[in-house]
């Protein structure tokens, strides 16, 4: 009895370690390697600042940096939210009717192939300054993955379920909302995870092309004043934001779809 509970607690500890310990260990060793490299080779902080230089740069003006982070975060979240909602809706419309899908999907793919970086200045022309064009760029950059993943989820309902639904002579709507949509959710989350990482990139690209507020603007301005540690601080904050948003989505997925992990290998 005690032996089995011992082995169980060991396996729980091992699972916890691989969930939280391993990522921490990986990040810590990368930091250590970076810090060692900058001190051993005596790299100038103008060229490549060490982690310590970055901490110092952050301590100098934490409020400013956090405020700019918040600006980038809101642009990211608003753009992502609109993209997720409209992407879902459009994918549902496209999969509902093959006529609409055939008519509009090539157009959608073509639009997606436009380099988003290239239209960032155009958005300023069309929408002016402020957060509007930035949110729009985020929306444009992360809309497509949501559409594609939702479509693939909605069209991958197993044949077994299809036959079951037909034998119950269930209405199209009931099958859609009780079978097809829930089955598509894991796929939809794949799209959301890709989209949230792209969303942060979109926000920064928009800020760099038209700097006023946000971490992208901090990077541009610090470059102009040759303040490399500040630029790196902004990059680190961006990375942290990206990781945090990504894992928030993972957590929501685990909470909503405990079955999805269990049925996949």
């Amino acid at each position, binding site marked *: 009895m005690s032996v089995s509970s011992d082995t169980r607690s060991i396996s729980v500890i091992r699972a916890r370690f691989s969930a939280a310990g391993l990522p921490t260990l990986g990040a810590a060793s990368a930091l250590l390697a970076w810090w060692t490299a900058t001190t051993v080779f005596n790299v100038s902080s103008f060229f490549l600042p060490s982690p310590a230089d970055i901490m110092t740069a952050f301590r100098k003006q934490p409020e400013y940096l956090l405020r700019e982070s918040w600006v980038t975060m809101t642009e990211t979240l608003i753009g992502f939210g609109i993209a997720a909602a409209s992407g879902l809706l459009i994918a549902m419309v496209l999969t509902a009717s093959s006529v609409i899908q055939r008519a509009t999907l090539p157009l959608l793919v073509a639009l997606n192939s436009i380099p988003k970086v290239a239209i960032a200045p155009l958005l300023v022309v069309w929408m002016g300054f402020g957060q509007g064009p930035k949110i729009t760029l985020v929306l444009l950059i992360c809309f497509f993955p949501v559409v594609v993943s939702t479509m693939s989820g909605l069209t991958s309902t197993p044949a077994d379920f299809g036959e079951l639904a037909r034998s119950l002579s269930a209405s199209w709507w*009931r099958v859609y909302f009780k079978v097809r949509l829930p089955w598509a959710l894991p796929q939809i989350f794949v799209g959301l995870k890709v989209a949230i990482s792209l969303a942060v990139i979109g926000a920064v690209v928009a800020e760099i092309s038209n700097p006023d507020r946000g971490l992208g603007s901090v990077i541009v301005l610090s470059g102009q004043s040759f303040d490399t540690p500040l630029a790196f601080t902004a990059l680190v904050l961006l990375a942290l934001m990206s990781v945090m948003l990504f894992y928030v989505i993972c957590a929501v997925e685990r909470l909503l779809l405990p079955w999805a992990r269990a049925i996949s290998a």
Partner: protein
Amino acid sequence: MIKIVGVSRTFQTRKGSVEALRNVDLDIGDGEFVAVIGRSGCGKSTLLRLVAGLISPTAGEVLIGGTPVGKPRRDVSMMFQQPALLPWRSVLDNVLLPIEMFGWRRSRHAERARHLLDMVGLTDFQSRLPHELSGGMQQRVALCRALIQQPRVLLMDEPFSALDALTREELAGELQRIHTDLKATTIFVTHSIQEAVLLADRVVVLSARPGRIRKIIDVAIPRPRSFSRSTHLAEVSSIVADLHELLLDIEDNRDALAAAPGRAPAGLRS
């Protein structure tokens, strides 16, 4: 209860047409349990899908309770080889799925769902998710789901064939008990001679493609029957022997040899 009159079914494929069933006539009485047995590809499943209204016959007619079958009906339920449980729904919610699909009131049928789960020994599992259950338990849930709408006709397409031998026997025993209780008219498609003899009032033997009725054998052994030591050992073994001969017989082998020269007939290989 079920009348199958001169039913044929041909499928059009890219390589031409395949005749799955030819001129099948079958009368099944109210509450009767009929097993349909035959080699792979003899049209067993096609016959079942015709009765379910999932496909329509090329010729002939299927009648249930006197009315022709055109599309799936709510008093006919179907159970498949795979449990096909929705992985995000609890066991109880899976059993209640047909009720929701029909747009009936859940609260009116929840009690019956619990009762059915109780019958198959899954009372303690009703709030679990399907992946937490063994294959046999999942198929039990699928059986409860097929019974929730109180069907007059139950169609079963090799429901136990994906399970291990012991679980199959266990489930066949449970199905016998449930059929005695609920008396739904049942067509049970199977590969297993044992299952057919254990469960059926009559066993319909189909010949290989195109599927035709080769013989109908009455199983006049009193219930409850069991796989183990039985007082009717002689009758059981004589029916099993008959079915073996019918399914593996010389004429079929000669057909197989003619169709694929140089190859051993399927029956001898296995």
